[in-house]
């Protein structure tokens, strides 16, 4: 799926022309490249008190542990001598009143123009909790609005996202750092304006953990993997070290086999709506790969129709594939104790499930339903030390979106803070992150991969 406008304005004469005309100026996003550094320049850590072993200090230490060039801004004192910041991390976990945001926010503001192309702003804050005082709740909730607004001000492929610690979680916890790592990296290229709640999660021993192959030794099942996002998820999970079982309907077998062979996994031709789909997936994963650690519910279909014209089959098929199949398969695996230790379930939701979309009552129902069951499933898998999350893609350049007429397609592409559509790999990276052992503590969440699409929350 080629976005030729993006290619044209990313350089040369057209870029200048687009600037003068005030047209959108999307840039080619920085994506994961194992040979490139985590961020394109030094990292500035804003917030915290001077010489205190506080959260900002813990974050800075962790960043140093990732071999980054880290500078800390204490109060409003900002280090000089840096041309471009690769990232600015704003740690406001200890803010108690709205006034406490003053220093870090303005320190960030002073440095924003020095943020590198495709740089990162990440806030580390605490999520509002049930026991919060009104002032504390206001302070913590305020960070959300602040972060989303900052994201919309950034240009040139830079993004802003937030790590929200929930009660009991520390800024230096593995899950919090995993989220920070993800937001800083090229893996989060199309994630923008999002806040991810991070809980304490079960204890996780990161000893010997290889960040270049976070899924080594894990067995992952991806449904709908023959093409598009699913195929990219399979590739990404395999790249991260997982043994991958790719699943798709028998009719998609040729493409499925090609994906399986590319990722050196195994192909399972299966209709996820079959009654025994869960049992067959489990049998295959167990007998052939020795377990089942990661389940990606990606299979999904569209049968767009205005509700007034909706035929029963159009409603039923979408609900069956997009929602009921996920419930049945996960339900079976939980019932029979099919998951291996610390399972990660990631389901594909959609921004349509959050914001709604004309002509997609069936799809919207199914995708909102996915978000609903994800929260409920998260509680069930917590007992296994696992997580359940959803990823909600926005406008992604796939075969599916290529079929949208030209003008609406261009509008949809530009209607995000990054002024472009995402790539399947962007969704895959988010899923791989939520499937990785390091993300334990992030559960029941919906992570949007939408370039901060204007639609929805």
């Amino acid at each position, binding site marked *: 799926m080629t976005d030729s406008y993006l290619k044209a304005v990313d350089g040369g004469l057209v870029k200048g022309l687009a600037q003068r005309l005030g047209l959108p100026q999307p840039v080619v996003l920085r994506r994961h490249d194992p040979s490139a550094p985590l961020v394109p320049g030094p990292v500035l850590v804003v917030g915290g008190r001077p010489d205190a072993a506080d959260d900002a200090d813990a974050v800075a230490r962790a960043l140093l542990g990732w071999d980054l060039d880290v500078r800390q801004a204490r109060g409003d004192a900002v280090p000089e001598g840096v041309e471009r910041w690769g990232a600015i991390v704003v740690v406001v976990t200890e803010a108690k009143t709205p006034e406490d945001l003053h220093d870090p926010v303005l320190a960030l503001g002073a440095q924003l123009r020095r943020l590198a192309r495709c740089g990162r702003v990440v806030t580390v804050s605490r999520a509002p909790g049930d026991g919060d005082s009104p002032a504390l709740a206001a302070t913590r909730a305020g960070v959300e609005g602040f972060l989303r607004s900052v994201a919309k001000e950034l240009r040139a492929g830079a993004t802003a996202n937030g790590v929200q610690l929930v009660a009991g979680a520390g800024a230096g916890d593995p899950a919090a750092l995993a989220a920070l790592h993800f937001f800083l990296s090229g893996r989060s290229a199309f994630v923008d304006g999002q806040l991810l709640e991070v809980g304490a999660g079960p204890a996780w021993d990161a000893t010997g953990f290889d960040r270049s192959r976070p899924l080594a030794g894990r067995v992952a099942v991806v449904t709908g993997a023959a093409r598009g996002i699913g195929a990219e998820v399979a590739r990404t999970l395999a790249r991260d070290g997982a043994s991958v079982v790719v699943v798709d309907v*028998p009719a998609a077998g040729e493409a499925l086999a090609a994906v399986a062979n590319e990722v050196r996994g195994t192909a399972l031709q299966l209709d996820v709506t079959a009654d025994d789909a869960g049992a067959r997936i489990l049998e295959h994963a167990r007998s052939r*790969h020795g377990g089942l650690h990661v389940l990606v519910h990606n299979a999904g279909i569209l049968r767009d129709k205005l509700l007034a014209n909706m035929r029963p089959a159009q409603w039923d098929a979408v609900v069956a594939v997009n929602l009921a199949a996920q419930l049945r398969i996960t339900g079976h695996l939980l019932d029979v104790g099919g998951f291996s230790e610390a399972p990660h379930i990631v389901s594909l939701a959609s921004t349509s499930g959050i914001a709604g979309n004309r002509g997609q009552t069936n799809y919207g129902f199914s995708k909102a339903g996915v978000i609903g069951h994800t929260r409920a499933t998260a509680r069930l898998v917590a007992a296994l030390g696992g997580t359940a999350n959803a990823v909600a893609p926005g406008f992604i350049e796939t075969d599916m979106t290529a079929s949208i007429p030209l003008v609406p397609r261009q509008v949809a592409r530009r209607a995000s803070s990054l002024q472009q559509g995402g790539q399947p790999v962007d969704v895959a990276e988010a899923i791989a992150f939520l499937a990785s052992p390091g993300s334990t503590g992030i559960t029941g969440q919906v992570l949007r991969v939408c370039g901060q699409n204007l639609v929805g929350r």
Partner: protein
Amino acid sequence: MATTPEPASSRSEDAGASGGAAGVPRTRDAVIVGGNRIPFARAGGKYAAASNQDMFTAALEGLVARFGLQGERLGEVVGGAVLKHSRDFNLVRESVLGSSLSPQTPAYDLQQACATGLEAVVSVANKIRLGQVESGIAGGADTVSDAPIAVSEGLRRVLLEASHARSTKARVAAFAKLRPRDLAPLSPSTDEPRTGLSMGEHQAITTARWGITREAQDAVALASHRNLAAAWDSGFFDDLVTPFRGLTRDQNLRPDSSAEKLASLRPVFGARLEGTEPSMTAGNSTPLTDGASAVLLASRAWAAERHLPVLARVVDAETAAVDYVHGHEGLLMAPAHAVPRLLARHGLGLGDFDLYEIHEAFASTVLTTLAAWEDADYCREELGLDGPLGSIDRDRLNVNGSSVAAGHPFAATGGRIVATAAKLAAARAAETGRTARALVSVCAAGGLGVAAIIESAAPGTEA
């Protein structure tokens, strides 16, 4: 003889490894892990632009994907094609090189007409049983749509002479012999070279000789379509077939076929046989078809190390040939000879099988074979038996359809049948809790026929 109880000597649960029957050496098991084929297409259909190599590579790729064999160095890959261009002299090896298997996987081409695929299975199984290889793939491909076109004999000789000529003058002299009629291309013929009769005409003669009725043939054809359609609908082929070029089911399958429709078709073979009613139609014969298949075989240890399933084991096989040239025997009757020899070696009766897979070259091929086994005189005189070989329970015959419905891309049929039989046997064994045994037979041009015994083989029962 119809339903002889299981002879103790033939069951393998206790014995473990193959063999044990008189005259059969004890060897380790060669097990069938699984199979893969592409849906079979009608000639000139979805695969019109695909070559044998394209199709066989696709069959291999699906098998590799199903069992995670990427980069695996297998013992060997064996297969072939009946209609093969000379440039495809290394068809199987070239297909391996185009697949995700390790390029260090050896391969060779084998050709035994329609029995190519089954003979390839037997060959690989034998090497596994002997310990020469641990694993292998057997299969085949055939395309009628992309069949090689040959030049006429006249042009061929002129071209050969010209290419051997040492001077321009000699070359010119060679070409001067060319006549316009020499320039017409020759399409490949499936006629028997020695008789000039097509396979259908040969079978029509056999059909006439055995007095097989039109109704009986149409009934076999109808069952083939219904059984195959039911198998597809039940998902039986979900792990046996990988779609190719947009074709997701066998193109020849007519789920809505009916006795009335079949009865309305005009006979196409045997129309000129004096004094017999022609009965073989396009509906009860196999159509020309394109396709490819592959079967993964292994030693039990190899399969276990890779956590691969074990469906069945190849117990034994027998290849027969008959003297059809001067009409002594029907062209496609060799399986009738192979099976009793195979059974005798294992002390088995014809009734001692849970499943029968008799290749439907034509519906009447199945019927003439069954009729022959029930005929006392024939069994005495031609097969050297004391009496009739026996009858089979027709409910166990080609239960998931056969070639009349699926189509018959010559060299691909053996792989289709073996994978189907292995999966059926495994399922039957899982259902009943005892070993299930299948008899497989494939007839072939040249008066050839191969029969094999396949038994369900739960993993890890080898001694």
